[in-house]
C-alpha cells in the first residue's frame, strides 16, 4: 500500500504504526506520532492499523522561538 510519511509518498507492507517506525529506523527515537491529523500516543501505536493513503506524521524535538 502507499501512505504518506511526513508528506512523502512511501510504499510499505507494514501493518501497524509501531511496524512503520521500526521500518523507518525510528523505533527507539524520541518522536511523537499522528495519523490523519490526530495524535496517536505511544501506547496506542501497536494497535493502530495503517490503511492505504493514510497520512502519518513523525515529529521530533526541534529548535523553536
Amino acid at each position, binding site marked *: 500500500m502507499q501512505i504518506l510519511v511526513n508528506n512523502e509518498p512511501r510504499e510499505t507492507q507494514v501493518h501497524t504504526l509501531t511496524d512503520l517506525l521500526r521500518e523507518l529506523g525510528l523505533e527507539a527515537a524520541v518522536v511523537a506520532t499522528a495519523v490523519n491529523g490526530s*495524535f496517536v500516543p505511544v501506547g496506542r501505536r501497536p494497535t493502530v492499523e495503517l490503511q492505504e493513503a493514510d497520512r502519518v506524521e513523525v*515529529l*521530533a*524535538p526541534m*529548535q523553536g*522561538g
Partner: protein
Amino acid sequence: MLEVYGTRIGSRLFLGTAQYPSPAILARAVEAAGAEVVTVSLRRESGAERAGQGFWSIIRELGVRVLPNTAGCYSAREAVTTAEMARELFGTPWIKLEVIGNHDTLQPDPFELVEAARILCAEGFEVFPYITEDLIVAERLLDAGCRVLMPWGAPIGSGRGLANPYALRTLRARFPEVPMVVDAGIGLPSHATQAMELGYDAVLLNTAVAKAGDPVRMAEAFRRAVEAGRLGFESDPMDARDMAAPSTPVLGTAFLA
C-alpha cells in the same frame, strides 16, 4: 519571584532556541542569559538525519524547563494536535499556543486561538497563549482557563521593540494579577527593560540574541536589562512632568553675581 501555573521561576528572561550559529553557542547563550525556561518546537524527523535527537540531548543537558510551541499552526485543530504531540514528546503540560492568522504578518488568529485554548485547557494543558494586546481576546482566553498571557511587543522577528506601549500599559492595568510575558518583537536590551518597567512579569525573545553578532554577550546584556527593568518597576518610579525642577537644593546657593 515569578510564578506561572504553580511553578516558581528564578529568571524573568525566557529564551528561544532557534537560529543560533551553533549548538555550542546556543548552550552558552542560555547560560549567559540565566534563562530557566527555553522555547522549543516540533518538526518532521527523518530516519536518515535524525536532527531532532541531537538537539533534544543538548537541551536536556542544559537542565532548563522547556516551553514547547505550536509555531506554524494556522487552525485550532492543528494547534491542538501539535500540543498533544508536544506534551508526550517533552513530558510537560506547558504549551506556548501560537495560532497564526496570516503568514506575512505572523499575527495571531484570535478566533482559532481562543478555540484551541478552550480545548487544551479542558485537556489539562497549561497554556501560554501568544496574543496581540487586544483586551477582549485576553479576557476570553482567561475565561477559557489560561492563567498566563503572552502579548506581542511587535511582529515576530521584527526587532522593533514595543510598537504600542499604550496598549501594553492598558493590558497590564486591566489584568494586574495575571502573569504576563511580552513575547516577540524585542530587538534590543532597552526594549526588554521597557517591557519590564511597564510591569510585565517576563519577556520571551529569540532572534535578538540568536542573530546578534555575539549571541553570548547579547544574552548577558538581556539578562541585565531584564533585571534592571524589573528592579526599576519594583522601585516605584517617579512621575514624569512637563517642566524642569532643580534636583540640587536651591537653599544656600552662593550669591556670586
